[in-house]
């Protein structure tokens, strides 16, 4: 019993382990990891896609894990639920597709992840994936787009002339599921940094941004549709072709072929279906920075994505081919690669008769619509009949054949050389001029009596009396400097003479005024006072008292004129003080001045010998009085 009991316990434990493993296996989602490339260059974008399916619950919380050597640009998750009914048994599958966009940052081999998802609160990891990063541009070409299944053919079927043709009728394919991952190959050349619009956008490209006048510029517009988004409706009124007024345009793709899927791009974590919306060969008409306008389209529904869609405006720098080496007869705009052939029939005619000249211009480029005929005397070229057989050549070129059928009348007898048909052109690939040439050969013209006799209605000579040509260049048109371009001419040549006279006159007048001012300054009361003060000081320093008193009296008189504006010379008695007082001098000062004058006069004319000491004392008082008068001022 004991042994049986132990066996039962062991069996139950084994059963429980087995059941648990099975149960766990039932909950674990099926995970599949895909890379669009396992070797990429630095700067390239690589997409890691994880598809997790579970019958229990929707997987969520997808995590990529470690991304050494890469930076994550974006992540996009697509949950999907599918129901299957088989033999009355219904089953549900929950699938989560997550795409991460990674940008390679440095060379090396890196292990990404492993990615993990959560189902029912349990996280399920998967194995890391290895990606090798090589130097930029060294990565191998990625897989090309595989044959698309019928359901994935272009839903747009766009034409630039009827861009929405069939769009609405065919756009139910938007209901279809996203393309299976294994059926889509991402073309990195079609990738963008970011989508230019939700669900649908336009992208314009040119094969070159600088060209010669007349050189082909390949202009392409791609339409990008989010392959995993729902249906949308176009705005029929918003469609408009690009505006290219400065170019001659030739469509390279027939309308019915527009809208073909050209590949798939991965942008912002979405897969975008890329279709060809327009492909033109553009030929610049003139030099300059010429603008190719945007193409316009619009999305009407859903409202979340509604709005206009425009492609980029593109500026092409256009210049004329170089002057150096330009052959005679070159016409700006003749760019491409051409050959010429010509046929002349018949070779023998009568004078005044005609031959037919058949000229073919063959090549790639904007085949010239006219060709210059070799104008020669006695040969009359009638206007040509032109036939065109030009159009797309291959995928990206425009060209073909243009024929010119001339009727040429020969008006002179003998062996007449018709000359050469010549077409100089600029070869943009080889960056040099070339000349396509077709010799026409000679025509034997037999004289005709009818042609030799001028009729009465023969046209009069045109432009008679022309002077003869010159046979040597003059080489005289050499630019030379002109005197009047220099400031020296105007200043030293023209202006200096009248200026000299003006300066002389002005200088004389100024000199006179300066002299007058100086003279007036010299004879002013203040100057006179300074002179008198100096004289008095000098006189007092000497021993002659009479002379000192006279100088003091003159200084006081000069001070009264300078400071009070009063002349006290000749005044007697109290008149001195009165005059000064009336002039605003303090009475005491005025009295002092009067006293000093009296004392000086008395000393000067005293019969006794004057004392210089007294005179110096008076001078000291006089200076005080003068300061008093000055203070009044």
């Amino acid at each position: 019993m004991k042994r049986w009991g132990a066996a039962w316990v062991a069996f139950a434990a084994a059963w429980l382990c087995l059941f648990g493993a099975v149960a766990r296996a039932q909950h674990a989602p099926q995970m599949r990891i895909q890379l669009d490339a396992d070797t990429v260059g630095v700067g390239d974008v690589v997409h890691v896609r994880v598809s997790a399916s579970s019958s229990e619950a929707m997987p969520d919380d997808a995590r990529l894990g470690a991304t050494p050597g890469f930076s994550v640009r974006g992540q996009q998750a697509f949950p999907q639920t599918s129901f299957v009914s088989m033999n009355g048994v219904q089953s549900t599958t929950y699938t989560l597709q997550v795409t991460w966009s990674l940008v390679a940052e440095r060379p090396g081999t890196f292990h990404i992840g492993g990615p993990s998802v959560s189902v029912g609160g349990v996280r399920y990891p998967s194995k890391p994936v290895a990606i090798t990063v090589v130097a930029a541009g060294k990565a191998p070409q990625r897989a090309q787009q595989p044959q698309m299944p019928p359901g994935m053919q272009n839903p747009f079927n766009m034409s630039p002339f009827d861009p929405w043709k069939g769009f609405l009728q065919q756009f139910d394919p938007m209901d279809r599921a996203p393309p299976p991952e294994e059926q889509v190959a991402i073309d990195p050349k079609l990738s963008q940094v970011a989508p230019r619009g939700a669900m649908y956008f336009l992208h314009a490209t040119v094969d070159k941004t600088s060209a010669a006048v007349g050189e082909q510029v390949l202009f392409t517009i791609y339409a990008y549709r989010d392959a995993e988004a729902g249906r949308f409706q176009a705005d029929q009124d918003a469609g408009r072709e690009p505006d290219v007024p400065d170019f001659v345009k030739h469509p390279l793709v027939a309308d019915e072929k527009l809208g073909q899927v050209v590949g798939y791009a991965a942008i912002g974590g979405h897969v975008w279906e890329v279709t060809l919306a327009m492909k033109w060969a553009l030929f610049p008409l003139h030099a300059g920075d010429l603008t190719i306008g945007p193409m316009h389209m619009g999305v009407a529904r859903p409202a979340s994505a509604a709005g206009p869609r425009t492609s980029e405006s593109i500026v092409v720098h256009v210049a004329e081919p170089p002057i150096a080496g330009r052959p005679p007869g070159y016409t700006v705009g003749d760019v491409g690669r051409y050959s010429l052939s010509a046929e002349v029939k018949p070779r023998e005619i009568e004078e005044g008769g005609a031959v037919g000249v058949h000229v073919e211009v063959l090549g790639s480029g904007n085949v010239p619509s006219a060709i210059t005929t070799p104008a020669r005397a006695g040969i009359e070229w009638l206007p040509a009949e032109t036939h065109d057989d030009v159009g797309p050549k291959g995928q990206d070129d425009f060209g073909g054949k243009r024929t010119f059928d001339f009727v040429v009348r020969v008006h002179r007898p003998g062996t007449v050389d018709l000359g050469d048909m010549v077409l100089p052109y600029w070869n943009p690939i080889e960056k040099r001029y070339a000349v396509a040439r077709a010799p026409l050969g000679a025509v034997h013209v037999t004289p005709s009596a009818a042609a030799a006799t001028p009729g009465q209605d023969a046209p009069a000579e045109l432009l008679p009396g022309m002077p003869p040509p010159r046979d040597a260049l003059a080489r005289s048109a050499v630019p030379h400097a002109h005197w009047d371009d220099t400031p020296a001419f105007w200043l030293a040549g023209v202006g200096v003479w009248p200026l000299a006279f003006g300066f002389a006159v002005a200088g004389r007048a100024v000199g006179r005024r300066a002299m007058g001012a100086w003279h007036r300054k010299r004879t002013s009361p203040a100057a006179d006072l300074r002179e008198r003060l100096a004289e008095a000081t000098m006189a007092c320093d000497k021993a002659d008292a009479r002379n000192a008193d006279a100088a003091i009296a003159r200084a006081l008189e000069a001070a009264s004129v300078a400071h009070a504006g009063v002349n006290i010379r000749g005044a007697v008695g109290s008149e001195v003080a009165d005059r000064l007082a009336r002039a605003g001098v303090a009475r005491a000062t005025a009295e002092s001045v009067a006293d000093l004058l009296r004392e000086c006069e008395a000393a000067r004319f005293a019969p006794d010998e004057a004392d210089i000491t007294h005179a110096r004392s008076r001078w000291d008082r006089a200076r005080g009085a003068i300061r008093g008068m000055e203070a009044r001022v």
Partner: protein
Amino acid sequence: MSRSAVALGVLFAALLTLAASNARAADETDALFASGVAALHDGRPGDAVSAFEALADRGVVDPVASYDRGLAYVGRVRIGAEVPGDLGRAAHGFEEARDLARDGPLADDAGKALMIVRSEVARRRVRAGQPVEVDPGRSLSRSLARLLSEDTWSALAVASAAGLAVGLFVRWLGRAVRVRVGGGVAAAVAGPVLAVAVVMTLAMRHDRMYLREAVVVGPNARPTDEHGLAVPGATPLPQGARVEVVDASGPWQKVRFGAIEVRVAASSLRELARAD
């Protein structure tokens, strides 16, 4: 080898290259001119036109090249191979030759040829019922200015300025009455002469630096508005007419023809080259 020796060597090589390039360009010019002249003499005006136009493309400004180019276009008209615009281009060549010519006979020949071409244009316009005026001539002031060259006007300005100053000084400082009167007369004459000479010098300089003239080479230079729409009732400018370019911006250039100002397609005009 020292650095200076290397630098000298590089400089010498650069000079040699420059000289060789100039010599090559001169050779090419001479060859083109010779082929054009030969074509003219051989009765191949089409080839002559190509050769002389190639010279013009290379920036060769020479009165003889312009004159012979005009003759080449005339030759094409005369043999019945006229291309629309040939008469205008012929007139352009002769106008250019007349402007550039330093020797009288060439200028006379160019003037004569120009008159013949314009007569033919006038004859055709008469047949078409259009006004026959092809050359309204220059304005009076411009005609006066062009009586003398810019350098001559400049020299006259300097001389008259000196004369004016001397006259004034003499008038001012002279003591004898005769001397003072003489100085006054000299100043009175030199003053106006100086004013005229300065104005003419400035006018000539302005023309040299800013005036752009062209010849109508399009056979149907119809006046338009600034958007290129033909002005109703306006008569096309005559082929071969000399016009002053007032506004060269855009594809429709504003030109002055006599007293009228109109816009015409830039492609129907060809600017006159100048030695300066």
